[in-house]
């Protein structure tokens, strides 16, 4: 196995582009930026197996922004599609009907609705079978392509189309974000990581590291979503960075279940700094400041990092 050389700076990221501009994705799409970075590492010999979501509209007949292959499946079953493609490629190569040079990395690309909710069964199956594939979940914390409704990935107190803040319910979403990382980890895949469009060096190194493992290699990317989050498209990277700096979005990896945090802020910013400029949390600030909710969110974040600290001896 070649020695793994992590890159140190954004300048070390390949200048090759496998995802070209001109897509119908929204301005400032955090997921698209990440996908571009991912494909720089994954390369051209890749097939993306897509589930219904925002990215389904990247390939619209007769156009595709990708250098690589693409198969749209349906919302619940991209990992099953990946199984079929991976197995078929292996069979063709084994039977001598396809040159090993023609082999492809199989990459599932979904949003959080498919990953956290409707596609969980097919994902679990693929993980359990130790399918050799990548999974990129672009998590914008709601059903974005249908106009931002609540999903299992929606965080506590976020306003969405189906968790509106009103006179009776002033909170917005009352449930906390589902812990997909831990659900995936319980299947003991070789590699899981969280990523952020604000930390491309971390992202690139994670994809490079993942490459050495045969089996499921899974990524959850927090994808700022200007129309859903009601944020300025030019500030997506800043919000992605704030999510990390406040400790709300923990950048970590798990190698065969062993969790390590890869980016730990020296000093955590208060969560309010992340929440205050996003329209999806505006109801927490106006007409009255909902101090209890700020406190609860801050406590959840603090508790998370306290546990991390005691487990990984990280200085907070």
């Amino acid at each position, binding site marked *: 196995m070649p020695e793994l050389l992590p890159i140190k700076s954004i300048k070390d990221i390949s200048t090759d582009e496998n995802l070209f501009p001109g897509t119908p994705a929204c301005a400032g799409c955090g997921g698209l930026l990440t996908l571009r970075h991912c494909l720089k590492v994954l390369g*051209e*010999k890749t*097939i993306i*197996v897509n589930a219904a979501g925002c990215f*389904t*509209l990247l*390939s*619209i*007949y007769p156009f*595709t922004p*990708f*250098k*690589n*292959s*693409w*198969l*749209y*499946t*349906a919302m*619940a*079953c991209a*990992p*099953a*599609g*990946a*199984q*079929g*493609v991976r*197995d*078929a*490629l*292996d*069979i*063709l190569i084994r*039977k001598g*009907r*396809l040159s090993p*040079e*023609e*082999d*492809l990395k199989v990459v599932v690309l979904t949003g959080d609705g498919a990953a956290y909710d409707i596609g969980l*069964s*097919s994902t*679990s*199956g693929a993980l359990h*079978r130790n399918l050799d594939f990548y999974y990129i979940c672009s998590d914008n914390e709601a059903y974005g392509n249908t106009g931002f409704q609540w999903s299992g990935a929606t965080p506590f107190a976020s306003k969405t189309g189906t968790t509106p803040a009103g006179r009776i319910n002033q909170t917005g979403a009352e449930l906390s974000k589902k812990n997909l990382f831990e659900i995936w980890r319980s299947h003991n895949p070789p590699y899981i990581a969280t990523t952020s469009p604000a930390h491309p060096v971390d992202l690139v190194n994670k994809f490079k590291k993942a490459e050495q493992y045969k089996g499921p290699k899974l990524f959850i990317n927090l994808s700022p979503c200007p129309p859903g989050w009601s944020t300025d498209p030019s500030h997506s990277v800043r919000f992605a960075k704030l999510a990390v700096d406040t400790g709300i979005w923990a950048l970590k990896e798990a190698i065969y279940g062993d969790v390590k945090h890869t980016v730990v802020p020296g000093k955590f910013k208060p969560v309010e700094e992340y929440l205050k400029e996003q329209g999806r949390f505006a109801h927490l600030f106006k007409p009255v400041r909902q101090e209890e909710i700020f406190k609860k969110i801050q406590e959840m974040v603090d508790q998370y990092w306290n546990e991390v600290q005691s487990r990984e001896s990280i200085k907070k």
Partner: protein
Amino acid sequence: MTREMLTGNAAAAWGVRLAEVDYVPAYPITPQTEIIETLAKWISDGVLDAGFVTVDSEHSMITAAGAASATGVRVFTATSSQGLLYGFEMLYSVAGWRVPLVMVNVSRGLSSPITLEPDHNDILAARDSGFLQIHCETCQEVLDSILMAYRLAEDERILLPVLVNMDGFHLSFTREPVEIPEIELVRKFLPAYHSKHAFFKATQPMAQGVAVLGGHAYSYFKYQMHLASIKSLEVYKEVSDEFKEVFGRSYNTIEGYMLDNAEYVLVMTNSFSTLGKEAVKKARVKGIKAGLLRIRLIRPFPDMDIVKALNGKKAVAVLDQNISVGKGGIVYSEIASALYNERENPLLLSFVGGLGGKNINPGEFEFVFDSMIKAVDTGKIPAPQLLYTETEWKEMENLKKIAGKQTTVIKTASV
């Protein structure tokens, strides 16, 4: 060639083995499971060189099957009833991918109430999906139809997936003598699959299953599927001619039984047609010029073959083993639409029977023939009728009594 006593399920597995498929994604469901178990064993023993994977649902199974087919291997899978409906979304998707997947459905009545025995609501629900559909009466036909199905699906003029249907229990678990053809003959009829259209490889990236924007693009691809399906009527005849040449057995889109000089024709599908043929023989003994038409190819629907077969008949009774709730028999509607624009049509009667594996007994068939004769004599066509016998009615009354329900007196046509 060897001759063995095989169940319908085992015959299906033999068809798959002889087709030398590359890949079988699977998920168990009664009464189909014996097919995938048989294939799993053969793959495990090394007599069939294929990949096998049990996935988490029929939805995933059809997805994996379609995706593998889109990657360029020969794929088989099988399901039944609830499973077909659970994976239903992907039937349309995979058909739209234009990949040559062959799938067996073992018919079983749909829940609720949940049951195990056959009728055709499951398979007929898939009739608009784009899959071609071949419905089988015998175990031999199941084996042979799978070989024919791959020829049709992989034909460049078609490139649509195929569903081969058999009745649960009545065929899936019934042993009949089946000729297992020699592999050399099969290879002559069905050469190895080398996909020219659907594949994934590094040097030739391709986007499959992509979105379209606008009805013009959507309609174009849907019309293409329809035209390919219609074209397959022609290709079917080539394939069945060649099949006869190689194996000596012949399967048309429809099968006539004592049909040539018949005046009163029963229309049926699948394995209960055997009961219908028996009833025709009995009617003939009584001097009724009875005959039977079995529809084998349900998609594409062989309108012209049916029109020709029923031309000049006095009356036709379609015996549907399915029920479109709120309308009636599904095949009846299809036959009616095939005949409607003809100048001279037979009287067309509709009967629903054999739901959930309910027997169709000789008395019920007599009732159907009597109804046809009466309709011709009086010129009056009865409303669609639901077949149910006096004995069955009494049994049901008894069950209701045990369940503590008041027995009712509402009763329509019964025998």
